[in-house]
């Protein structure tokens, strides 16, 4: 009897410990990446302050949706290897860096969008070395499910972007799954991205209990205007794909 009681207590303690750890470990992970070293005075002659501001904003706000832990990195920790090794575990992914819709290895007219990793503290960006192709990301996801993907770059919200597909997000606006992709269509000023994302998060996380949808947050941010644009052929345009009724909280769909 005593052995049975001892065994029962041991099992309960083990289950309790396992449960507590599992609760923390099985949480829905988010990653926020920001290329900052390419935008320092070492590489440019001046320091662009927006990578840091956008990183801080998005770490805080994605966490408010309930994703945890928030991994990723700003600076030298944002490497192709780190992103590709970690992306399988993620449910939310944010990246601020240079991005574009490049020709695929197979050539025109096939597109394989890419973002640039942080070049580290002793180099500056070089496309051949630093590109993280959407095809590489897609392979690293092993087809897994993503709730929220934000590409805070130029061009990756455009019609030719292959980045949504890397995360299994179809380019429709009528998904019924808990998924949402946000990107910018044209060449976009950092200040425009920052203004948009401040408004987006202010709206989305501005009410308790996640009552608001990502579509509403997008619509609000797009509706407030005031976005300077590089030129007439590059007006500020943000775009989204996914589920218009989704509130952004993590979960398997």
């Amino acid at each position, binding site marked *: 009897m005593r052995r049975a009681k001892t065994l029962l207590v041991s099992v309960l303690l083990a289950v309790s410990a396992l449960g507590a*750890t*599992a609760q*923390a*470990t*099985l949480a829905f*992970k988010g990653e926020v990446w920001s290329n900052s070293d*390419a*935008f320092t*005075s070492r*590489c440019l*002659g001046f*320091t*662009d*302050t*927006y990578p840091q*501001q956008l990183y*801080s*904003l998005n*770490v805080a706000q994605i966490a408010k949706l309930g994703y945890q832990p928030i*991994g*990723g*990195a*700003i600076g*030298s*920790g*944002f490497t192709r290897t*780190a992103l590709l*090794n*970690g992306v399988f*575990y993620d449910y939310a992914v944010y990246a601020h860096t240079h991005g574009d819709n490049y020709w695929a290895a197979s050539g025109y007219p096939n597109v394989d969008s890419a973002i*640039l990793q942080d070049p580290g*503290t002793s180099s*500056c*960006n070089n*496309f051949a070395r630093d590109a993280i192709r959407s095809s590489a990301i897609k392979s690293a*996801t092993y*087809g*897994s*499910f993503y709730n929220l993907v934000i590409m805070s770059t*130029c061009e990756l919200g455009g019609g030719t972007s292959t980045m949504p597909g890397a995360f299994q997000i179809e380019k429709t606006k009528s998904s019924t799954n808990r998924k949402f992709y946000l990107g910018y269509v044209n*060449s976009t*000023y*950092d*200040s425009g991205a920052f203004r948009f994302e401040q408004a987006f998060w*202010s709206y989305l996380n*501005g009410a308790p209990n996640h009552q*608001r949808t990502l*579509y509403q947050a997008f*619509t*609000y941010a*797009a*509706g*407030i*205007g*005031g976005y300077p644009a*590089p*030129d007439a052929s590059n*007006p500020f*345009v943000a775009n989204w794909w996914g589920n218009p009724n989704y509130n952004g909280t993590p979960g*398997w769909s």
Partner: protein
Amino acid sequence: MSTMSKSKKIRSFLAVGTVVLSLAVSTGQLTAAGLVSGNAPSSGDNSVGLGRSTIETPIYADDAPKVFAHAATVRDGLGFPAGANRSGKHVKDALQKSEYDEVDELDNAGRQISIAQFDTAGDLVAAVRLDIPSGFMVKATGDGASKAAERALAKVSLAAVGQAQVEDDPVAGGWNVHWDRVQDGFAVRGDETRVRVWQDGRIQSVAHVEHKLASAPVTQLTRDAGQRAVSGQLDKWFAGRGFGYAIQGMNLEWVGPNTAFDPAKVGATGEPYRLAWVANVQPSGSISDVVRLITLYVDAGDGTVIGGDVVE
């Protein structure tokens, strides 16, 4: 079994496996989170978006009848649907660094179907319809959208000054109609009145963005002097790096001094807009792998760089 459900199971399996592994490690330091998390920020200020909260105070029609009446006029003028209920609040928005009164139209479930925001002077800042449009029965033209936008502004007592610019909205399929602000003959960067029009001609949103302007400098830098200031700054930044550049255009504009190139000033509150030479600079060389365009603001009075922007 679908690929997704397989991967869900694999992710769960790996996570549980990691839990067991971490339990086996007596120090408890080797956790799944530790294995897959990235680095902490390597440098800089983390204060933006962290630890600063938005403050909201409820307002009611009895206490703020003008705000609610104005909101009703805006709602009806723009053709927004009336909600089952309305709510109001005064907001000090830490993220957007702004302060406004907001009146929301709510459906039966308490969800917002539209909002109207007014600045501290009571002027309309933004009105946005937040419901999802159902199938569009009619298709407006760009000209029709422009006229609908003008009518909407008249109904909410916003002046549409100058020539409207009409652009297709590639996301929603309708149009963006905007009037860019001009003061003393110079554009005010980002200031505008903008109306987003759905495909069928209904109004989705109206925004009015207007910043305070400082006095224009008594003596203005000439274009040549402005260009010399821009070149001087770029030559200093690019010295010894092998970068080239081409100044694509320079215009006098009213701009907001900003922190784009000055980390020490991040988080500072906005100053009045100043008249500046605005130069768009196309960099060349290896810098163009990561920066497409640099925009510099050079104060039209004293020739100092007061901000700018970057297209990555």
